[in-house]
């Protein structure tokens, strides 16, 4: 790329709509799996706390899934969910997010001090009622912490989907590399970082709203 500047602004100016569409596509591909994973992690986490024997086998399975390289999983899924489809990228990302969210959900539910749990039982909460009314709200700061990790790592991983034809902003990296033209690469990096930053800020804001009592980081007393 000798002599080629890092950024040619005219290219960005000419491709604003294109960059916007890629960013939105990236956000959907990366973040919808995290939401789906949250919807699965909460009931699964509640079940794991209620029936502790479930937790170890489940967490072992998700850990193994997490260890699989994303590209390999995308390729394996192509025959089932299609080439260059959102689903091919989103299904593995859902599992990766679950691998992060299940332990944080379980930790969060277990973070409730014993005295709180006993007080709740002594006042006449049944086991499920107590989990949903006392332990789950108390786990919110943990859930948000898990969501922050899962969302950012999902945003980063989604770019890999470009290798099988659906990776949102990831396509800019392949494009720039193939044409030895750094401007799309730089644009992609900045936009991925911006997307991660905005998502993270929104999550922090959500925690302030949902758990105003957890003012200090990790103050899930």
């Amino acid at each position, binding site marked *: 790329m000798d002599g080629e500047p890092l950024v040619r602004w005219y290219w960005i100016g000419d491709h604003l709509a294109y960059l916007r569409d890629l960013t939105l596509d990236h956000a959907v591909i990366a973040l919808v799996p995290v939401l789906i994973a949250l919807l699965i992690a909460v009931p699964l986490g509640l079940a794991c706390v209620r029936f502790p024997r479930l937790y170890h086998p489940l967490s072992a399975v998700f850990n193994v899934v997490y260890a699989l390289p994303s590209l390999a999983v995308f390729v394996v899924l192509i025959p089932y969910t299609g080439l260059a489809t959102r689903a091919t990228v989103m299904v593995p990302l859902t599992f990766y997010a679950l691998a992060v969210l299940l332990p944080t959900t379980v930790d969060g539910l277990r973070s*409730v001090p014993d*005295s709180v749990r006993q*007080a709740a039982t002594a006042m*006449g909460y049944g086991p499920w009622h107590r989990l949903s009314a006392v332990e789950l709200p*108390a786990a919110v700061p943990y859930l948000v912490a898990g969501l922050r990790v899962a969302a950012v790592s999902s945003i980063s991983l989604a770019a890999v989907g470009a290798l099988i034809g659906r990776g949102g902003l990831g396509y800019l990296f392949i494009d720039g590399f193939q044409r030895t033209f750094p401007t799309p690469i730089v644009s992609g990096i900045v936009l991925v970082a911006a997307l991660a930053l905005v998502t993270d800020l929104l999550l922090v804001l959500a925690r302030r709203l949902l758990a105003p*009592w957890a003012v200090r980081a990790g103050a899930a007393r």
Partner: protein
Amino acid sequence: MIRFDGAAKRHPDGTIAVEGLDLDIPAGRTTVLVGPSGCGKTTILRMVNRMVEPTAGRVLLDGTDVAELPAAKLRRGIGYVIQQAGLFPHRRVIDNIATVPYLLGWDRKKARARAAELLELVGLAPELAKRYPFQLSGGQQQRVGVARALAADPPVLLMDEPFSAVDPVVRAGLQDELLRLQSELNKTVLFVTHDIEEAVRLGDQVVVLREHGHIAQLSDPHTLLTEPADDGVAAFLGRDRGLRGLGLLPARDIAVRPLTDGTRQGGWELRLDAGGRPTGWVEPGLHAQPRPAPAFHPGVDTLRTALDAAILSPAGAAVALDKDGRATGIATREAILAALTGPQPAASKPDSPKPDDPKAGSPNPDSPEGQDERPVNSHGR
């Protein structure tokens, strides 16, 4: 009334927590279970609300075996206070207090109105209602814990070392508050502690436990201090128990010399202000600063307070005050000591059980506070 009828708890691994307990907890009074850690006192407490199910025997609440009642329903009718308060971190103070009313299906407005009443009852400012538990001090959290336990006005209150985690000054305040509340509410209180001072301070009856929930002694606090059942109990009570026992007797029947007979005592003269309140002792003829005049309220303060005042007084006598703080008379050390050996119950108690109460392991004295029905119940074994 709560009755333990041969109640026992054996853990699945074979260890015994409580072995065949027979005990009556009288209604409307405070019963304190006290003993070293591992004596089974918390296990006993939790048998009442079924947080521990006895493996043998029964626990009866007003004649009904608690095992026959649905656990959640039973627990909503029993207040429960624990050491760390156990407040819900995600709920504001007002909603923490209203927990049981909500569970009972009260509407939000009524439950919160009740919670606001309780906040006041336990001596907390109304503006604390909107706070979260982490914004309260340890003592305030514990008060909220008590308010929460009382929210649905349960007849029975279980308290498991509720004041152990706060510093001594705050603890004394909480104990005073509980005594005041109990004098208004007359709940059946079962209180667990490892602190014998707390036990004799709060209990109408005190149950000293050994390992496996065996009852070492069951009596009113004064009898416990003055007549421990055996050396083990005496050792558990610690030093100066005779003197500490004075702290449980009201300063009555002391020969107070009225001020109308003079304000001089042993070369000192008591000075009063215009309202009749004592300002200090002075030596006539000398122009030194007056020395403090320690005082007590007859019938309100304890004999220990009166004796302490007399010991600290330069004139060797305590000043007796009326309820407005005006001096009414002078009580010499000798007069106070005479009251100790006079008609007070500690003086002349027989050591053997009363013949008409063969189960009583220690005699029930004539009550120190004129309550002749201090409960003394059967021992476990």
